[in-house]
C-alpha cells in the first residue's frame, strides 16, 4: 500500500498525524535507519521500542526536523519535514532524550522564553505558562533555577516546554530514562493524561511502560521496523508456545501419563514438590489445554492447588523479535517490509 498515494484522499489526511515512507539515514558508512515506514493516526499513542542503536532517536530527530534524512519521506500533520520544516516544528512538541535546558534560568523564565520562541503573544503566553506549570505539577517550582532541580523535575520542565504551544503531536524520546521508580510513575501518569489530548510517539526501552501506555507498538532493530501491532496482539504471538503449569497431588507416573495424552501438549516436565507434583506443559501452537487438563484432574480426583498459563509479556516478544525468532508475517508486517 502506498501511503502517499492514499494521502491525497482528504479523509485519509485527517486520520494520519505521522506518515513515514522508506525513511533512510546514513552517517558516513553507517546506516542508522534503513527504509523505515510507518504511520501514526491522530490521537494515537504509539511506542517506539528497540535496543540501543536500533535507530529510534534518529527517527525521532528526523521527525522533529533536527537532522535531515538521507532518503525517503516523512510527513507530520500533512507537512513535509524536509520542505516545510517550520510548519512541522510548530505542530510538534519534541522532548529530546537528554532534556537539554538552560540551567541558569528559572523555570518560569525558561517557559516564557520558549513560549515567545514558539510565537505565543503576551496574554496567551501568560495563560499557557500557568496552564503547563499546573499540568506538569510545577506550580511550586516556578521560581526555582533549573540547575537546582532534580532530574525528574527537569523532565517535567521539558514536558511543559513541549506542551506550551499546544502542538498536535508530541514526540518524546525516552522520557523516563535515568529516573527513580517514583519519578517514572509520575512522568508515566503525566504522559497518560496527555494522551487524551495529543497524538504521542514515545520512544523507550522500558517495556512495561509501553504495555501500560501505548495503544500500538513499533519495534525497531538494526535500523528497521521489525514489528508493528498492539501490545496485546504482539504478546499473543508468543501464546502458541505458552506453558501451562499445574500443581496436583497424585501419583507422579500417572500424572505424567495422563497429561501427555492430552492432544495439545507438546512436551512436559514434572518437578516434585514434596508430595505434590508441579507439571509444566509446553503446548502446541495456538493450543489452550487448561480445560482438558482440568477435566483429567477431575476424572482422576486429584487435588489441585494451581492451574495457570505462564503469562508472556512484551519483554518476551521484544527478545524473540530482536533475536529474530519470530516470523515477519506473525509480527503484523508485510513480508517485503521486514
Amino acid at each position, binding site marked *: 500500500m502506498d501511503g502517499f498515494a492514499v494521502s491525497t484522499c482528504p479523509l485519509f489526511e485527517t486520520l494520519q498525524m505521522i506518515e513515514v515512507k522508506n525513511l533512510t539515514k546514513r552517517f558516513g558508512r553507517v546506516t542508522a535507519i534503513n527504509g523505515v515506514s510507518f504511520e501514526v493516526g491522530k490521537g494515537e499513542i504509539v511506542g517506539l521500542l528497540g535496543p540501543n542503536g536500533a535507530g529510534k532517536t534518529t527517527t525521532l530527530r528526523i521527525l522533529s526536523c*533536527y537532522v535531515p534524512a538521507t532518503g525517503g519521506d516523512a510527513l507530520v500533520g500533512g507537512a513535509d519535514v524536509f520542505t516545510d520544516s517550520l510548519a512541522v516544528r510548530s505542530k510538534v512538541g519534541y522532548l529530546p532524550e537528554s532534556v*537539554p535546558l538552560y540551567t541558569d534560568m528559572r523555570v518560569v523564565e525558561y517557559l516564557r522564553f*520558549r513560549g515567545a520562541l514558539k510565537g505565543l503573544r503576551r496574554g496567551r503566553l501568560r495563560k499557557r505558562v500557568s496552564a503547563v506549570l499546573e499540568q506538569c505539577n510545577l506550580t511550586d517550582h516556578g521560581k526555582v533555577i533549573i540547575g537546582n532541580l532534580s532530574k525528574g523535575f527537569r523532565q517535567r520542565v521539558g514536558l511543559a516546554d513541549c506542551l506550551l504551544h499546544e502542538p498536535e503531536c508530541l514526540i518524546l524520546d525516552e522520557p523516563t530514562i535515568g529516573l527513580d521508580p517514583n519519578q517514572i510513575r509520575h512522568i508515566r501518569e503525566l504522559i497518560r493524561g496527555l494522551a487524551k489530548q495529543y497524538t504521542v510517539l514515545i520512544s523507550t526501552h522500558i517495556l512495561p511502560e509501553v504495555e501500560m501506555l501505548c495503544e500500538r507498538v513499533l519495534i525497531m532493530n538494526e535500523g528497521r521496523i521489525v514489528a508493528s501491532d498492539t501490545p496485546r496482539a504482539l504478546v499473543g504471538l508468543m501464546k502458541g508456545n505458552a506453558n501451562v503449569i499445574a500443581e496436583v497431588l497424585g501419583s507422579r507416573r500417572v500424572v505424567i501419563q495422563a497429561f501427555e495424552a492430552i492432544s495439545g501438549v507438546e512436551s512436559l516436565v514434572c518437578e516434585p514438590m514434596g508430595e505434590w507434583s508441579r507439571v509444566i506443559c509446553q503446548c502446541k501452537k495456538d493450543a489452550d489445554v487448561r480445560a482438558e487438563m482440568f477435566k483429567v484432574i477431575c476424572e482422576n480426583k486429584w487435588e489441585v492447588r494451581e492451574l495457570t498459563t505462564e503469562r508472556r509479556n512484551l519483554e518476551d516478544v521484544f527478545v524473540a523479535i530482536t533475536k529474530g525468532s519470530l516470523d515477519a508475517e506473525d509480527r503484523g508486517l508485510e513480508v517485503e517490509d521486514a
Partner: protein
Amino acid sequence: MRKALTIMKRELCSLFYSPVAYVTSVVFVAASAWTFLQAVETRAGSEDSVVLILLVSIFLWIPILVTVICMRLLAEEKRAGTLETLMTAPVTETAIILGKYASALLFVWLVLVPSVLTVYWLATVSPGIESIDPYAVVGGCVILGLITACCVSVGVLVSLLTRNQIVAAICCFAAICMPFFVKPLAVALPFVRDSVVEYVSLETHVVGFASGGLSLQVCVLYLSVTILMLFASIRIMESRRWL
C-alpha cells in the same frame, strides 16, 4: 524579528546572570583606560590626537573582548545540547543567528561606552587638554562600532563551526587579529597596489575617522564584510537541515 529579539534578550540575561559580563567589562575598561593613560603620558607634548590615542588603546583589547563574548555563543549551545531544542522550535536560522549576533554586539558596545568616556574624564582632570574635537569622537565611535560589528560577526561564524569553546576562542582571536596585519602584509607583497592597501587597511580607516573624516567607502566595506559573515553563518546553520 520578534523571535530574534527574544533570543537576544535571553543571551543578554544569560551574560548578566553569570560573572562573565561583570568580569569582562571591568577588566576591559580598566585595561583600555590604563593603556590610554600610559600612551598619553608617553606622548605628552606631541601633536598626536588624544582621540586617536584612545582608539588605538581600545583596539588593542578588542580582539580579547570579542573573543571572550563570542566563543560561547553557539559552541556552548552545541556542547550543552540546547541547540537541539532551539533548532526544533518553530524559529528560523536567521532569527537564531541575528539574535545571537545582536546580543553579543550590544554587550560589546555597552562595554565600549565607559572606555570612550575615559577621554572626557581625562580632559576634566588634565589642564593640558584644552578641548576634545567632537567630530573626532563621533568619527572614532563610528569606526569603533563598524569594526566591532565586523569582528562580532566573525566571532559568530567561528563559534558556529565548533562545539569546543577553546577551539572557538583560538580561531576567533586569530581571525579578529588578522585585519591588524593586513597593511604590513599587503606592503610586503610587491604586486598589491598602494590604493588597494589603503582601502583595506584598518590603520588608515582608524586614523581617517579619528580626525573627523567619515568615509562612506569604509562604512560599506565593513558593513559588507559583516553581512557576508552573517549570511555565511545563516547558510551554515541552515545546511544542518539538508546535509
